[in-house]
């Protein structure tokens, strides 16, 4: 179900279920989300006054929308499986860590390890992301409107990282099969990460990612693609200097 239709249904047919973390505890919020069953009518949730709380809306496994009104601490949306979480603020370390599916949108900036080890779904950061964005990613798609910090996509295994701004040092160090698309400059590439040809299939893939992330006015042709040179996939003593 498209997000627009969902929010309309929520506003007309039923009120959002509101959780004010000034009144209710984090435990009550997460337990209520985990108690959801398939087909539940409680499809729209709103979290007020998160005030940097850790582990907001972690382990949600139903396709609900959760609007978090403010900034969150560590691991917001951790292991998300199918829900759509929007953080109307900034996110602390590990937002969307190990996400399985669904989507997380951060309206502000994100701290370290955004989308770490994510297996699937879409993480959109409308501001900047700090270091190690997409570390060890395993299938997640990450779109950052701003810049990303150093050591991003370290040991990235699978999935796509799209950066509209610049990337810090050692991008894609020890990368496996993940694809990196950067529109701005890259301070340096990590071990075994190289610039690669942008073929038609990649332009198409990138356009799809930009569309899903709600990015307009930016063309796929403005990006460069980076990925693995695959020279470190099997150990060879003559490559030892690369580490």
């Amino acid at each position: 179900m498209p997000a627009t239709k969902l929010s309309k249904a929520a506003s007309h047919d039923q009120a959002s279920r509101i959780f004010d973390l000034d009144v209710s505890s984090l435990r009550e919020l997460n337990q209520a989300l985990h108690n959801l069953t398939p087909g539940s009518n409680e499809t729209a949730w709103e979290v007020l006054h998160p005030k940097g709380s850790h582990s907001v809306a972690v382990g949600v496994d139903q396709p609900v929308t959760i609007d978090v009104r403010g900034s969150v601490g560590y691991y917001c949306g951790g292991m998300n499986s199918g829900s759509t979480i929007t953080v109307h603020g900034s996110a602390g370390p590990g937002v969307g860590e190990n996400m399985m599916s669904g989507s997380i949108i951060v309206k502000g900036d994100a701290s370290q390890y955004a989308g770490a080890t994510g297996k699937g779904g879409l993480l959109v950061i409308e501001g900047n992301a700090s270091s190690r964005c997409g570390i060890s990613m395993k299938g997640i798609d990450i779109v950052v409107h701003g810049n990303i910090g150093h050591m991003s996509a370290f040991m990235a295994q699978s999935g796509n990282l799209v950066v509209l701004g610049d990337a810090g040092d050692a991008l894609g160090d020890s990368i496996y099969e993940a694809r990196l698309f950067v529109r701005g400059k890259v301070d340096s590439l990590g071990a075994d990460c190289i610039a690669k040809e942008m073929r038609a299939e990649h332009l198409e893939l990138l356009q799809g990612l930009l569309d899903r992330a709600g990015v307009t006015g930016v063309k796929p042709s403005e990006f460069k693609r980076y990925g693995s040179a695959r020279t470190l996939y099997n150990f060879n003593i003559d490559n030892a200097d690369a580490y």
Partner: protein
Amino acid sequence: MTYRNPPTTPRKSATFDDYTLSEIRRAAATGIYDIRGAGAKRKLPHFDDLLFLGASISRYPLEGYRERCDTSVVLGSRHAKKPIELKIPITIAGMSFGSLSGPAKEALGRGATLAGTSTTTGDGGMTEEERGHSKQLVYQYLPSRYGMNLRDLRRADAIEVVVGQGAKPGGGGMLLGQKISDRVAEMRTLPKGIDQRSASRHPDWTGPDDLEIKILELREITDWEKPIYVKVGGARPYYDTALAVKAGADVVVVDGMQGGTAATQEVFIENVGQPTLACIRPAVQALQDLGMHRKVQLIVSGGIRNGADVAKALALGVDAVSIGTAALVALGDNDPRWEAEYNELGTTAGAYDDWHEGRDPAGITTQDPELMKRVDPIAAGRRLANYLKVMTLEAQTIARACGKNSLHNLEPEDLVALTIEAAAMAGVPLAGTNWIPGKNGF
């Protein structure tokens, strides 16, 4: 007849012994460090250096086959709504699907379940074989997060955050290309046939303050139901235990350097970390200093072989032990029946440790479909259960002889040491003396 001066007997160097010379030649020829499985093989102060005193005039024993000697243990009672209740204080350590075959993982689950204890996943995710056949399954949360997913996290009975392991404190996992079958590759989201060097640090936390937040997240995801273990290699057992407790662990697992690995550098196994015996008292001391002994449970692993080792570990203050290498031997690892095939691999039964090559004649540390058929999960599981029961009976025999109606009532006072080293490490007197090295200033 010519006179010949008497020759000297050829003398080999103690420093440059045959093994050392062979290793220099091997390194020069291949240009790669030696990689192998298992734990430290060098001689180390160990449980063999401790003895129980038994009953005497001042202590009376319990009847061997009549009076009850409790072996049960509850793990994770500090915070978890559903702690793990085990019939015996011997658990099966984490070993990955990938390093072990599917049938071997199934056999571990079957054996542990028959004996009333838990088994543990490894650096490769949870398989149906082990979930289906393990009544109580501990799900490891590792730096690589291979195969980590919400469904498996929720169907685990406990979660073990792995910071390190005794064979290689500070090192990550290693699974070389020859063992990366289609199934292993898919579970780990990596291409088939490439070397996998797992990360040594967690991707989304560093240090004890982050760990506390990570544990909170895992509890929130699993609704505070499951015990959270923290496993560390035997590096700094006092501080690691204290910091794990501070971070909120329900159970601390300390793995000494005899603890095995699927594969890492020989130089790492033999030169990094501390012997299991040296790790126990500092870990127990940390719990006692925090007032958390017996509230946060301590599991120790690395070189546990028999009921005497179990009893000695428990007497030093441990709540449960964990076995890996010994469990594999019970399944059939290094069995002399495969001697001809071990010889073809340039080794002999009892010394085979090239587990990373995936050619295990016993069919345990392999992904080869033909070799893995050699493990019958039902029969191998039965052997493991038998072995666990024997270890338990042995520990009970010793405990009753010391007058204890529970294995957990064994205490340091029941022990003496045969060597000064063991006396110092275990904090018990040297046999025949009242001297505990390091105590009272000398």
